[in-house]
């Protein structure tokens, strides 16, 4: 009796692993690979506020710092990097180079299913017409 129960449990576990693991073994069997997202780079500008690797890893920290400086500390003095001045502003600075949010932010965020709420309030300057 005890042996029967072990077999049944093992079978149930195997079935559960097969069902819940489907996304993994299915894509592994078919040799599917996730495409690396390709955010659109600005045409004219080559330099950002921080080096590209640091921006890639920590842009959210920088945005939070700017947000806290501007909103909470009232410190809206522009940030000078390499002779260029950047306003501490998402629409006023970031979107002036990365013109289309859809072609820049959304490319990576979309591929990893991350949905930051920035543009619920901040305005994507590339958009026109009524909001949905």
């Amino acid at each position, binding site marked *: 009796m005890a042996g029967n129960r072990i077999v049944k449990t093992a079978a149930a576990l195997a079935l559960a692993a097969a069902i819940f693991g489907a996304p993994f073994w299915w894509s592994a069997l078919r040799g599917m690979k996730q495409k690396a997202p390709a955010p659109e780079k600005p045409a004219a500008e080559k330099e950002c506020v921080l080096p590209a690797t640091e921006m890639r890893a920590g842009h959210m920290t920088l945005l939070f710092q700017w947000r806290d400086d501007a*909103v909470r500390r009232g410190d809206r003095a522009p940030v000078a990097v390499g002779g260029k001045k950047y306003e501490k502003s998402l*629409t006023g600075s970031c979107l002036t180079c990365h013109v289309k949010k859809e072609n820049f932010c959304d490319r990576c965020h979309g591929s990893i299913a991350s949905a930051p709420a920035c543009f619920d*309030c901040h*305005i994507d300057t590339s958009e026109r017409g009524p909001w949905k």
Partner: protein
Amino acid sequence: MEMTRLDFLKKAWRTGLVLFGGASFEVVSGSALLAADGKPSGRRMAMAIDIRACVKDAGCVKCISACHRGHNVPVIPDAKRAITWIWKDTIDRAMPGVLDPYSGADLRGANTLLLCNQCANPPCVRVCPTGATWKREDGIVMMDQHRCIGCRYCMAACPYGSRSFNWGDPRRYLDKGSVARDYPTRTKGTVEKCEFCAERVDRGLGPLCAGACAEKAILFGDLNAPGSAVRKALAGRIALRRKPELGTDPSVYYLL
């Protein structure tokens, strides 16, 4: 040994916990804002609205539209869901009991401008559980939309009705083509109000409403600076504030 409630209170009293607890009241009493000589330190942004200059053109809404356009405040037809940062109402409703049936006949039934009073002792700030609304060092009572959770405690606390709640997505009433692109909109489930144009004050500019007024009826400046436009106006005129008896210490004055 089991401790009864009475035992606990006795011990707490003896160890001074109850006494020290009183120290927390010091923090909110506001005395920290005064320098050693008892004079106020730092700036305190304030506004003086010249009622008589304002009532000259009863239909004028230049200041309101400048503010609402500049801050992407939606025009929502349903009055119960409307968003207002600055609006007009009768003097009698704004400052009940100030007018009597005989004096100031020209002001009876006339409108004046209403907006957030930027209180020195703001009840909204006391009740905000997330720190989404707070008083800056220059006295401006700010809203941080990033932190607002839409609990509306601040709306219940505000004695002036200066705050509005976004019952729905305000963007449904705005157009991408005509919004002020350098200023964000708000989102569903957050509270908003006049912020004395803090984003402009930080750049050394005055509020949009003051700039839009053809009659120059809206004066703006530092209440702690004797030479400021507001202080000069207050020195020579009688000024009223809304519900001063509540102890909120408003920073918006109405010049008579």
